[in-house]
């Protein structure tokens, strides 16, 4: 019988990745994801895996690209400034339809920013991780348990859709400890007949490539890839609805800020305010279905983020003017307090009226 263990979020993601069959980790030191790489450097040699500290974030993501091309389950982790450097490699992975898992334990930006928790890479993760027409799947865990669960699931989804998958965490989730139940180690991994493993004189040579000098060919491939994205949008949306059944003031928050928003919702309910919370777990695909399910009761969306307002734009796109969308955020590494969020809920409640 498996037992819960007390783990840091960063370590839980690492252990869970190993259990998902990841035997290759390439990274570069950066705060606040340090524990993840340290855990990998300790555990990989014990399970026949490879931990390699790359010379740069750029080299690390290109090692992920190479290991993925060679058919392996592979992971890298970093924090915001490092993810910017990985953008090139992630774009190439998308262009070559290579699976792989990228962890971003976000910190405040722009530039060197700070080392305190932030959610200011939402746009980067969901809009423009790198150049070109592509998306990656993005999971936003909110607990250490979810960090383990989605790190585990990310490998399956990456292989299923041949897509890079990001775990968008932050310094608060990465550093905090909670009890976690680890998933079972996988012993069977999917076949990858497309991988460059050496053709053994048994098949035509495999090519991993994103270069298409003929515009027609490139357009056709991009269109095919976006058809796959439509399948992902239809099948892979995930969100948690908390106290949403009759909710008028619907908060929207992911990751660390969702923990605070949840407390604020509970406090608002105690005052008799019909508040609820939509917590997107997949940021891409954005869980539009969850929003549709509250449109009948919702009179106000209050988006709470640890940034200057990024996911709020996706909420406006879903709402399409049907429900007003407001924003409350703290930035620079500051975590909003439940009390400040509650004040916003109260104000919204007053505005909306009885």
């Amino acid at each position, binding site marked *: 019988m498996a037992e819960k263990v007390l783990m840091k979020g960063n370590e839980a993601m690492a252990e869970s990745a190993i259990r998902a069959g990841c035997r*290759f980790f*390439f990274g570069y030191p950066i705060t606040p994801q340090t524990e993840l790489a340290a855990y990998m450097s300790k555990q990989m040699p014990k399970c026949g895996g*490879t931990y*390699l500290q*790359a*010379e*740069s974030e*750029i*080299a*690390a993501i*290109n*090692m*992920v*690209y*190479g*290991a993925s*091309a*060679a*058919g*392996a389950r*592979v992971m890298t982790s970093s924090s915001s400034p490092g993810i910017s450097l990985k953008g*090139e*490699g992630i774009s*190439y992975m998308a262009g*070559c339809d290579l699976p792989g898992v990228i962890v971003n334990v976000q910190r405040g930006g722009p530039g060197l920013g700070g080392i305190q928790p932030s959610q200011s890479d939402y746009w980067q993760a969901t809009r423009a991780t790198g150049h070109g027409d592509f998306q990656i799947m993005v999971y936003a865990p909110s607990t250490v348990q979810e960090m383990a669960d989605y790190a585990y699931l990310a490998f399956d989804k990456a292989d299923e859709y041949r897509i890079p998958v990001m775990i968008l965490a932050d310094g608060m989730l990465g550093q905090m400890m909670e009890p976690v139940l680890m998933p079972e180690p996988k012993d069977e991994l999917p076949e990858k007949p497309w991988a*460059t*493993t*050496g*053709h*053994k*004189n*048994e098949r035509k*040579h*495999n*090519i*991993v*490539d*994103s*270069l298409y000098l003929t515009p027609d060919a490139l357009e056709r491939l991009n269109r095919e890839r976006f058809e796959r994205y439509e399948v992902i949008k239809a099948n892979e949306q995930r969100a948690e609805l908390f106290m949403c059944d009759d909710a008028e003031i619907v908060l929207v928050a992911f990751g660390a800020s969702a923990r605070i928003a949840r407390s604020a919702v509970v406090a608002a309910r105690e005052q008799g305010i019909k508040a609820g919370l939509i917590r997107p777990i997949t940021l891409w695909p954005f869980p539009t279905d969850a929003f549709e399910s509250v449109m009948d009761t919702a009179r106000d969306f209050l988006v709470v983020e640890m940034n200057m307002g990024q996911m709020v734009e996706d909420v406006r796109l879903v709402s399409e003017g049907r429900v007003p969308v407001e924003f409350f955020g703290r930035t620079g590494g500051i975590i909003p307090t439940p009390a400040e969020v509650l004040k916003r809920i109260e104000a919204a409640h007053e505005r909306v009226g009885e």
Partner: protein
Amino acid sequence: MSAEEKVVFERPHALLPVITNYCPGCPHGIVHRLVAETIDELGIEGETVGVAPVGCAVTSVDFFGCDMIEAAHGRAPAVATAVKRVHPNNVVFAYQGDGDLASIGMAETVHAATRGENITVIFINNAIYGMTGGQMAPTSLPHQITQTSPYGRDTTTAGFPIRVSELLSSLDGVAYLERVTVDSPKNVRKAKKAIKKAFQNQIDGVGYSLIEVVSTCPTNWGLSPQDSFNWMRENMLPYYPLGVYKDVVADGFANAAEAAAARSADCPVAHPEKAGA
């Protein structure tokens, strides 16, 4: 074919029967052939994975018969590192140009070399960016005229060319470095020998091997293929002398690690096995 006739020359199996997109007179064709002949002779096509980064030879993913991976500009050593780590029994080679290897990918080059990755690198140094139309490269010579050094490379502002083989020869992870060219049958044979040795080293676990091929770019140099070779002999070979820059086996070591251990013999922390001796 009559009984007396026998095949003495044919396309290597590892070079696919396709039309390449290289310019007339470009030595890529010669070097591709030498790599493919090597793969055939060592019987490793089924185990070989090639990595072709951005540059003219990025399209070689379609020309070599082994499994091939395109890499981002400069990143082939990182990609090749990972492929080799995943499949240590595969033969992994990177085929890179000078802008790719010595400019945008210099960090990846130096670190793959210093890690002693057991891979083979074929480095084409023709002192110019070919694919983008003839810009100044890290190996462009002083006063060499290119599209982006129209008054000649001014070393006071653009700095000096990088001698890659000399630079890498100081690194402990490196097993074998040789600079060759392919301007004559004699030199082609020498280049072939070096390339084959660089692949054999990998199979034998000797370590990181890089062959620098001093080459030409008739199109962007604005010279005929033969005049290009003349210019290369006259100007490039004095700056980039041919020869072996490192060979740990010739130095009496089994591999790069052994040579590195001998070099650091007086450093106690590097030699825990000597503790208490």
